[in-house]
């Protein structure tokens, strides 16, 4: 355990909304917040809110936010007591955490050994089995003969999944539903694995059909205490990227929450964990759950846990790093009410999520009861192509899920972003989806619905009518565009330089231009 040490200044090795979130936590604790920034981020929100800000390099991450040694040197030079890495970038590099320790700077996160142990898929799986944490059944030993594969498959029970030992990215993976399919799938998986990785060994795993992604937030101090703060439901994902998260999960009751919490605490304890971390599980339809991985850092979706538990995770990360034991609020961390987060990305959900960089011309965040916005941008900001396209997280809290959904709809209606495209229209469409409303979720659901065109935008045809005016649906945008265009044309005409050389009244010019326009009556 590190020697107790008062933290008075923290250097944040990150950018965007998470740098802002950490700065807010520090400010409330009375701790000075310093940030690093790359060249294009000079005018970004974290820099504007920081007590100190230091340039760290040009736009590319590896020349700026990933310069671990330079960041540690900077921390020492400016007298920062600690470094908070946020998520992404250097947050899960054991080597960086070690570098901090060697320089006498507190790394706000778990011990380097815990990061390293959880960073290896093979190693963490072995540790979890030893600790009695459920993992997806199956062996990691290569199956050199089809007979051995068949025996292993019938022992696991169908359906099973063949996976390449050297694999990743779906290559060399084959789902096998029944014994008759095994031989052909085995041959195909081996040849694909050989072609893709130069190693044709494969192993077998139990296939979990349409699971949910449910994760447990844990918090540990340096006095041997680790606590579960309950689950987050993160099944709504687009190509393995979470887009909507909520707490509690509609699929988790009191008993399952307790059992998953105990498993998560066991997982964390097995690697000597301290500080904030998340243990991710697959939750099968039959209620069985399996360890997926542990994220050894603060998560993007931490606010939903904060809202239902009332615990400020960022503040507690600092206190724990100072050597403080977990306080009494951790004794009764039961979810109260319901929180939902949607991630606002600068992407066009209806053009295959094409990035949408550009200047944010208009920006108004929703406000009012139960609404929290964790944003990294302000109006006028230039969204560049250099970094993750997440602009902000819109988070709502209400007494129950039904009311949280209504509040999310209200908040999305208040949100105004122009100049770039965002994923907001997708969330409006999701709110109208019967499966989402009922909490029937699985990790493939969003991709399936998008592929089937089920989450179409609510465009002109679906709304925008003035009630009680005799107009029809879709009149509103047509009226608005016509008027904006009319105003623009009138203004342009009014300010256009006179064409005839001599000075002329602007009104006369406008009138002349107007009369030249065929059919004009204005």
């Amino acid at each position, binding site marked *: 355990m590190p020697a107790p040490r008062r933290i008075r200044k923290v250097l944040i090795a990150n950018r965007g909304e998470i740098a802002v979130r950490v700065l807010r936590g520090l400010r409330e604790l009375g701790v000075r917040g310093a940030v690093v920034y790359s060249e294009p981020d000079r005018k970004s929100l974290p820099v504007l809110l920081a007590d100190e800000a230091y340039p760290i390099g040009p736009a590319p991450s590896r020349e700026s936010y990933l310069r671990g040694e330079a960041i540690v040197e900077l921390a020492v030079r400016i007298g920062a007591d600690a470094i908070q890495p946020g998520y992404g970038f250097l947050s899960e590099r054991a080597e960086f955490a070690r570098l901090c320790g060697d320089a006498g700077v507190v790394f706000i996160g778990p011990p380097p050994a815990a990061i390293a142990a959880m960073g290896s898929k093979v190693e963490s799986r072995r540790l979890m089995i030893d600790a009695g944490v459920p993992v997806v059944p199956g062996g990691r030993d290569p199956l050199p003969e089809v007979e051995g594969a068949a025996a292993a498959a019938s022992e696991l029970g169908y359906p099973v999944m063949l996976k390449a030992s050297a694999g990743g990215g779906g290559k060399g993976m084959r789902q096998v539903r029944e014994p008759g399919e095994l031989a052909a799938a085995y041959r195909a998986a081996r040849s694909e694995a050989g072609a893709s990785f130069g190693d044709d060994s494969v192993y077998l795993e139990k296939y979990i059909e349409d699971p949910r992604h449910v994760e447990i937030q844990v918090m540990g101090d340096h006095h041997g205490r680790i606590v579960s703060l309950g689950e987050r439901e993160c099944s709504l994902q687009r190509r393995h990227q979470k887009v909507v998260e909520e707490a509690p999960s509609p699929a988790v009751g009191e008993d399952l929450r307790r059992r998953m919490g105990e498993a998560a605490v066991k997982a964390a304890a097995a690697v000597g964990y301290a500080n904030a971390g998340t243990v991710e599980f697959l939750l099968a339809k039959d209620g069985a759950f399996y360890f997926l991985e542990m994220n050894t850092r603060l998560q993007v979706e931490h606010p939903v846990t904060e809202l239902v538990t009332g615990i400020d995770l960022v503040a507690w990360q600092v206190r724990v790093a100072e050597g403080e034991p977990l306080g009494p609020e951790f004794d009764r961390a039961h979810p109260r009410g319901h929180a939902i987060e949607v991630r606002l990305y600068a992407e066009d959900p209806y053009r295959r999520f094409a*990035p949408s960089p550009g200047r944010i011309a208009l920006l108004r965040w929703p406000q009012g009861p139960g609404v929290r916005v964790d944003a990294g941008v302000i109006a006028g900001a230039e969204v560049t192509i250099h970094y993750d396209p997440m602009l902000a997280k819109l988070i709502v809290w209400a007494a129950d899920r039904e009311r949280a959904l209504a509040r999310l709809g209200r908040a999305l209606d208040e949100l*105004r972003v122009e100049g770039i495209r965002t994923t907001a229209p997708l969330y409006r469409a999701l709110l109208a989806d019967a499966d989402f409303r009922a909490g029937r979720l699985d990790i493939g659901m969003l991709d399936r619905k998008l592929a089937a065109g089920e989450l179409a935008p609510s*465009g002109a045809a*679906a709304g925008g009518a003035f009630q009680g005016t005799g107009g029809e649906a879709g009149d509103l945008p047509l*009226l608005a565009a016509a008027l904006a265009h*009319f105003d623009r044309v009138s203004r342009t005409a009014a300010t256009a330089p006179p064409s005839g050389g001599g000075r002329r009244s602007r009104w006369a010019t406008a009138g002349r231009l107007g009369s030249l326009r065929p059919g004009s009556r204005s």
Partner: protein
Amino acid sequence: MELIVRSGEREEPVRVERSEAGYRVTLAGRTFEVDLAAVAEELYSLRVDGAQQEVSVHRLEEGRYRVAWAGGSTEVEVADPLTVLARSAHGAAAVKGPRRVAANMPGRVVAILAAEGTEVAPGQGVVVLEAMKMENEIQADRAGTIRAVFVTPGQAVEGGDPLFEIG
């Protein structure tokens, strides 16, 4: 002022005049008295017989707007009738000639999916661009032959740089 507005499948003539209330707008044969207040840059409050809607109107290019309101958003084209006539006269010819497809944002070329001489179908991927850590397939917008590819894998491109020509 006479205008033609189009959004999705719907195309309507619109007449806009100034009036006591602000504007008198005739859309699809119905006349609305509209009070329009510019609240901020690109943000308006529209009142029609007391019914109020807050609307943002963002100009994408001349005559093309993105309109958003509580509950939805859409693109609207606005043109005067002469422009529409001129466009339909030239339109047929314009579609036939070879067309250059340009990068819509800065990025890096990851792969060429259809080399010169390849026959492509509409929607078929031709170039893969990486921007904001995401790979994007730039597709053929119609059937034709790839006449030229102007980029190579690994090359950095700016928004507007030509990627390929389809004919």
